[in-house]
């Protein structure tokens, strides 16, 4: 496995990023050596974003949450949950990606690290509501630019983000090769 985001340097590129297509002499190196593309994450950016007002659709949920000092392994950011009774049926995280010391150029940027809804709630406008609300909360904290990413083959998310206001930024690849004979542990 090569170039996979799980094993990347923390200061390289963005969360979930594999090898950028802009480092263009690397993918053909792996290709020549018999590696296959394993995963592909695509990044979108929206400079000076303007998150629209999107009403909460009538799907029997309420959306709660706000700014937190820490979001998962990232820095500060917005965490929103869609609640149905006691259950969380969706979440949206928009982190201040520029808070990390190795990203000084991104100090005004936020990154949506998670936008997940239970399957039955997709396609009803709830995701739009939550993302718009998450972005507005980030904007209230002074963040001006936004990024987001998805798998290259997640056409629904791709269509959503590109029509919401984000534009294409970068495509990244990870590579995989099955080695013929893995040596036994301890073998010389």
């Amino acid at each position, binding site marked *: 496995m090569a170039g996979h985001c799980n094993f990347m340097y923390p200061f390289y590129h963005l969360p979930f990023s594999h090898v950028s297509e802009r480092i*263009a002499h690397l*993918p*053909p190196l792996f290709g020549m050596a018999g590696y296959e593309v394993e995963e592909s994450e695509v990044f*979108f950016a929206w400079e000076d974003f303007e998150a629209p007002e999107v009403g909460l659709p009538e799907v029997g949920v309420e959306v709660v949450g706000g700014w937190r000092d820490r979001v998962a392994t990232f820095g500060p950011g917005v965490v929103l949950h869609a609640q149905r009774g006691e259950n969380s049926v969706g979440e949206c995280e928009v982190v201040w990606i520029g808070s990390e010391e190795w990203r000084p150029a991104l100090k005004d940027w936020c990154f949506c690290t998670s936008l997940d809804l239970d399957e039955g709630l997709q396609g009803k406008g709830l995701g739009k509501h939550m993302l718009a609300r998450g972005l507005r909360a980030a904007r209230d904290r002074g963040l001006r630019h936004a990024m987001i990413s998805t798998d290259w083959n997640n056409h629904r998310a791709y269509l959503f983000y590109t029509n919401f*206001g984000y*534009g294409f930024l970068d*495509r990244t690849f990870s590579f995989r090769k099955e080695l013929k004979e893995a040596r036994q542990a301890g073998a010389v």
Partner: protein
Amino acid sequence: MEIVPFRPDMAEGVTRLYNELIEPVPDCHPVPVDRFASVEALASTRLRDERLVVALHDGEVAGFAHVGVALPVEHYPVPTGEPAAVRFLGYRPGQRAVGRRLLEWAEEYARQQDRGTIEAWHYFARYPFYHCPWGQLSERMAHIRALFGMAGYAEADDGQLYFNWHDFDPPKPQKPVIELELKPEWKEGPLGPRMDLRAMQGETELGMCRMDRGQTSPSPEAQDWCYCDGMWVQDELQGKRLGMLLLVCALREMKKAGCRHAAISTSWKNYRAALFYTNLGYRFADQTYGFRKELAE
């Protein structure tokens, strides 16, 4: 919103939309309104029964689609089976309903033409002024790519990588390991002057590198460019760095002729070529994609 056949009075709205859409695409130049003067003016010799339709929203151009049916053409890599072809399909980000309606219209057209397959953004059918000669849909027009993905189109496996090299500075050529003579030949090409550099051994052609001066635009800054439209080397001479010699010498010839920037493209699957170009000095600029869908009855 309504979908209507293109009329000349829509040329301004269509041109404005086209220029907006290609704005983020590297080395793709805006066009003047006369490019969209009529369907006849845009017609391709590689297609029949072309149609250009416009999506009007409150009387304004909100999108357009241009389709035709592929003709078999000699000496050109053509899609098999003479499919219906989408030459261009554009809508503004945020108006996905417009895009969807246009794509549905294009598929209905394909059925009316009795085509079981529809190709989109194949370089076979591209507008001659769009992107590079092998350009398909640029990844920068991401909302259009998303539309085709959602509608069940598969990516064609010959997606093109497009590289450029600003202020290119080719290295000194190394002495070839076999005896040969390099012969440049200048003529008129599709973009501007064209130079074919041949590696000759007596009467035998060992390899060739083709350079076109200019990009797919008459604008002055496009004339500072050269585009390598193809190169080949005899199979039995592969690995003797003859390709390197040809490309380096062709670049030097173009630089001598006044070109400042260079561009080249290759299939994503052609790792050898991509490795060669990126290590010579070209940099990644864009990736383009074609799409194909088999239509149900």
